């Protein structure tokens, strides 16, 4: 029970810091919910884009710099 309480107060403290520092604390509950949904959606789409494209780009740049291939033609 003590561990659950301390985890809950830890999460409450950090959620409070997030809402205070972004001034979401002042918005109405519906607005808070929509803003959180928007933020989570934006972050998840960014994460997905990162996951799909960034490794391929990194490999391309590595091979370009270290000269294992000529400049690739525009596809």
């Amino acid at each position, binding site marked *: 029970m003590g561990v659950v309480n301390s985890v809950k107060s830890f999460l409450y*403290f950090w959620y*409070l*810091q997030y*809402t*205070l*520092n*972004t*001034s*979401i*604390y*002042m*918005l*109405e509950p519906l*607005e808070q919910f929509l*803003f959180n949904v928007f933020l989570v959606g934006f972050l998840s789409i960014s994460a997905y884009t990162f996951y799909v494209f960034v490794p391929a780009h990194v490999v391309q740049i590595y091979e370009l710099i270290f000269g294992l291939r000529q400049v690739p033609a525009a596809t």
Partner: protein
Amino acid sequence: MSMVETIYMPSENDFRGKTKKFNGVQNGGKISNGCHKKTKQVDEETEKAWEKDFCETFEETPMLAAISTYIGYLILVAVGHVREFLKSIGIGVVKCVAEPKIPGFVPLYQTWESFYSWYVYRRIQDCFCRPVSGVPGAKMVVIDRESNDHRWSFQYTGGHSTVLNFGSYNYLGFSQNSGPCAEEVEQTIKNYGVSVCGSRQELGYLDLHKQMDRLVADYLGVEDAYTVPMGFATNSMNIPSLVGKGCLILSDELNHASLILGCRLSGAKIKTFKHNCMKDLEKNLREAIVDKQPRTHRPWKKILIVVEGVYSMEGSIVKLPEVLRLKKKYKAYLYLDEAHSIGAIGPHGKGVVDYFGLNPRDVDIMMGTFTKSFGAVGGYIGGSQALVNHLRLYSHSAIYSSSMAPGVAQQIVSSMNIMLGRDGTREGEKRIQQLKWNTRYFRRRLQEMGFILYGNKDSPVVPLLMFMPSKIAKFSRESLNRGMGVVVVGFPATPMTKCRARFCLSASHTKEMLDEALQITSDIGDLLAIKYSKAEPPSYSENDVPLVEDS
């Protein structure tokens, strides 16, 4: 690296001998026969002696707090615009005034002020304008209210809470409904009635007013004084009768609205100088004297420097010895507004002139109010006999406004008699010393906890910086729940990114009340993470303030 930007904080080097300063060269490399240098040194030393005890800090804003504040305002403004758009297409309830779109008419509500008050201020409106009842002494009764429509409107729940009062201007603790002052006021109301029913020049000048004017003059140490029933009107209605067109007013950039209004009404040219910055003031004075009036290049008729004793939003004290030196050098006049400093600072409670140990006759116009320290209402202007004679004839408030109510005048007379010790007790001295002790103790403890405080170590107004509007809202609500009432201030009264809570200390606060308040503040500070300060611990303490014991 320290992030503190301190002004005149005494350091070790100030106390070492003045001879070995520049790379070990004696006397700073200057060659003289020794006689002139000695007297000059003595003059400089006595002139700068006040700087050794003058300790003011205005710590820099931490970078993360500034960034969070800007992001927060960005989000609030964006959400506000989205709500405006939704309101225009009919979705969502926004209970502001609906403006019909009539072609050919200028819109009423398009400015930033309306937008801010609907979409930022309104959201935390329950922290401001709280209804209170009863005497606002060391504790006050706040009437509870709640809002069911996101703070567009409020309903009373029927309950009330008694909280510690750190919001009222009650520096000497005269805000009481019992005690010698209240009894004398009751007797006076029985003798004179409640109102004077006339202006000062038309049968409104009672013997009580004459006694009060004489007492104020004795208290300040000036030749004569003139009182006005409203503190704001003392500034706004009397400055126009002192300066006019062809005069120049140099006013501090953080002056109160009443001073700004009075200066504008007078018709004189106004120039502001940086807050409490004597170099900027000197530069402006020199430019004014050299360049003279803008187009005609005639010399200014009068140059008036307008400063306040204690600035209530910053907690800073004006550098009066320096201002007086500049005033005498450049032959300007000085208007000193001691609204928050009379009674609150100085070894005898006589204001900022007393604090620095200067001669009150040096200040041309000493203005102050009775609202903060004397538990009354109204203001005064003190100065030479010629000045007061002129004001009695030409001031707007003498001609047009009703004179001070007898009960209020008696409150002023009673409280000033207590402060001067004329009632035979040491009550006045006790209150002054208690306030001083409270100020030092409270400020020291808060700075040791790690909060950013602004202002001088001796000022009873304590601004605690929180930078973000959401944090001041949370602070205000939490502290009310835990039993402490403070005033929080946000954008229009302070710069946009420097929102703060302001504690007003009082001589009626006991050490137990202060400790309780400090504990509450520390708990909320941990919850909100507002202990931003990276400065060294304070070098002052309350131990050098002797308290007067009850006999």
